[in-house]
């Protein structure tokens, strides 16, 4: 696998997070297969990649805090809580669906 290989994935945003991503709820992306260190891309790298290369909104702190997804955002890997899948160490696979959901509090 060459270093510039990419993986096609779907990234979705819900609960208001889509407003940080050009108001688009569903993004079909090709992300690098390996991170800066040549390690296979995991969720932690995806979050950095989204922040650096996809997010145009300057309010990065509404998405990341202390290098990871901020509190109040659920990360769902193929319809399951990322806690079931190894959290940010989960290695991203071809065709994965990663959903970021901001918790709502209104009623």
């Amino acid at each position: 696998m060459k270093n510039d290989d990419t993986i096609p994935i779907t990234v979705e945003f819900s609960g208001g997070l889509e407003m940080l991503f050009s108001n688009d709820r569903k993004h079909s992306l090709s992300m690098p297969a390996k991170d800066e260190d040549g390690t296979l891309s995991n969720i932690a790298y995806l979050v950095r990649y989204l922040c650096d290369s996809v997010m145009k909104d300057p309010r990065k702190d509404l998405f990341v805090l202390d290098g990871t997804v901020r509190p109040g955002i659920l990360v769902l890997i193929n319809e399951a809580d990322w806690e079931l899948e190894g959290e940010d160490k989960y290695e991203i696979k071809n065709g994965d669906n990663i959903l970021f959901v901001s918790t709502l509090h209104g009623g």
Partner: protein
Amino acid sequence: PPGRRWPLDAVEYRRYGRQLIMPEVGLQGQLRLKNAAVLIIGMGGLGCPAAAYLAGAGVGTIGLVDGDVVEESNLHRQILHSTARVGMTKVESAMVALNSLNPNVKLVSHTTRLSPETALSTMQPYDLVLDCTDNPASRYLISDTCVLLGKTLVSASALRTDGQLMVLNNPPMPPGSTSGGPCYRCVFPKPPPPESVVSCGDGGILGPVVGIMGVLQALEAIKVLTRNSNPSIPETPPDPPSLLIFSAYSSPMFRSIRLRTRKAKCAACSAQASVTPEALNSGSLDYVQFCGVINPVDAL
């Protein structure tokens, strides 16, 4: 006495007949509903439809908690209230409507906001709690209290065109038991930064969106209360923990997400819990401080 022969009145058979004849409810399920006490915290966009359908179904006792009064801007979504009752407390206004729908339900009014000092005593008499509030501090407080009291919590929220629903602490095992369902803190150990929190007042809300979530809360409450009441249907365990995500302008509109089980180090429901009745009663758990102060500027 003749009352013994029929566990329900003729009036009740007539009123609840359409749900009584279903195997999922049946006579035993209807009796469970009649003997149940459900607390609805928040009589806004979620609490109104939830209360209407629980009162309609014949839940015997319904407690209503809210410290606010009805405003005109509530009426597009808070369908138990009315234009003539603008200015009345939301609890009183809801009681007028619920009483006219089903006078057989006993309504208990709690016309103040829930606080750490009052939460345990307010929630203690109820079998099940619906979180229909609108801010993170209340959500942590209600979940913590449900864990301490061993009550299942049906939690929903809505904003703009989106809604979320979870049944928490189901089954409601004591803190430290790994067979209990996850609590709100298991799913969200840390509160969101206050600048990320938006209320329906600031962000807007489409009436039917919050309405759907509220009716779903009533449904989940009825499912929890009547579960395994029919002796001719094999017993089933509670559904595995999940989050229902609703998005009015997405396709599909509904998604179900599998959630984690209880978190081994949860501050509320684990063996190492720091949330205790004493801490709650003493006021040493400051939920408003924990969740930070909301600043609507730049809020998401």
